[in-house]
């Protein structure tokens, strides 16, 4: 169990997808002007990461990995080159299903997430999470923990960033730095702060 807590902690802080691996930056910079939209997007990312990473893990382990098809009598088959297509397909399908399900059962949350949910298909933090899962060679239960932690870390990062940006709205910034330039600088400072978490680990 402490193994899983460690995976979550590391995914949230030391290996934060947004601030340590710099994934999902397009959405991060574009959708962080207001705190409430950032909050909705953060929730969506947590949900999508927690669902897609274990599903992709299962598919990878049972079908794609080299030698994984031995249960079907094909021990020499290596389909791992298909992982990009499979992962992006799973993500696109799942985001679509989530979109429809939320619309049907939790319309309040759905209207709050608005257009951000479909956009998550092309958020590199989501695909990146699945690719890192392969690189880390996690098993199914670990991948649930990793997915949750990765989503939570990304959500935390965008919330912090959105709050800072709200404060900066009325500040007097040099002309050329206004908007995107300053957003980059602030993200740089945040990322620098998060690099202090490197090596964080819970010891039993």
């Amino acid at each position, binding site marked *: 169990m402490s193994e899983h807590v460690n995976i979550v902690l590391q995914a949230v802080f030391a290996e934060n997808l947004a601030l340590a691996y710099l994934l999902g930056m397009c959405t991060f*910079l*574009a959708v962080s002007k207001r705190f409430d939209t950032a909050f909705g997007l953060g929730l969506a990312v947590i949900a999508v990461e927690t669902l897609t990473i274990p599903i992709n893990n299962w598919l990878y382990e049972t079908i794609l990995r080299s030698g994984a098809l031995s249960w079907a009598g094909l021990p020499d088959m290596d389909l791992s080159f298909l992982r990009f*297509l499979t992962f992006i397909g799973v993500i696109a399908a799942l985001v679509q299903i989530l979109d429809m399900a939320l619309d049907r059962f939790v319309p309040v949350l759905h209207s709050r997430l608005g257009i951000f949910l479909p956009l998550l298909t092309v958020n*590199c933090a989501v695909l*990146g999470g699945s690719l890192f899962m392969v690189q880390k060679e996690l098993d199914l239960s670990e991948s649930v923990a990793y997915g949750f932690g990765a989503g939570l870390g990304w959500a935390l990062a965008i919330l912090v960033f959105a709050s800072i940006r709200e404060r900066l709205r009325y500040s007097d910034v040099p002309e050329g730095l*206004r*908007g995107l330039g300053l957003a980059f600088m602030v993200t*740089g400072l945040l990322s620098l702060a998060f690099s202090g978490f490197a090596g964080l680990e819970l010891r039993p």
Partner: protein
Amino acid sequence: MRYRQVLTDPIIDNNPVTLQILGICSAVAVTRSMWPAFVMAISVTAVLMFSNTAVSALRGIMPRSVRLVLEVTLIASAVIVADEALQAYAPETSKTLSVFVGLIITNCIVLGRAESFALNNGVRASFLDGLGNGIGYGLLLLSVAAVRELFGSGTLMDQPVFAQTADSAIFVANEFMALPASAFFIIGLIIWALRSWKPDQVEAREFDAEDGG
């Protein structure tokens, strides 16, 4: 004339990273030294040219409702080819770039250009738009990588520029440049410089632009 504009516009006047806010993740993550950045820029340009051409050629027969899925599939196929080619011919670089080659699929430049340009323009113009955006992206990537490699390890393209000895008083490697955070500051400064040079790229103040939004 028009074709030339399509090709040269995205290099500085409408740069994908500094103005369109596209493709930032990889711009920051692979720029620690110039060689991986160069390989990355070439791969993105190749994928971009292929996907723009293919989407433009198929735009007449793609049903609008499933076009996103089709576009992503086209892009993913191109990326698989690029990834396998890199693993075969440049295994070292492929390892350095790790997941970022795969992440070209979700690089917003590729899908963004397919959606906003290739869907509405002819094959030749789309091809040139892909090339132009690839060059604009590569140029930014390489300038960030040049700064980080020069001050971070004293080399350019792995060729030593500053002599590095134990008691070197002239050059001490800047550890900060190895951190991803440095790329943000460099891109921020590049944007600042670019917008001082071309003031029409300056953004309107936020509270004027989006009040009530």
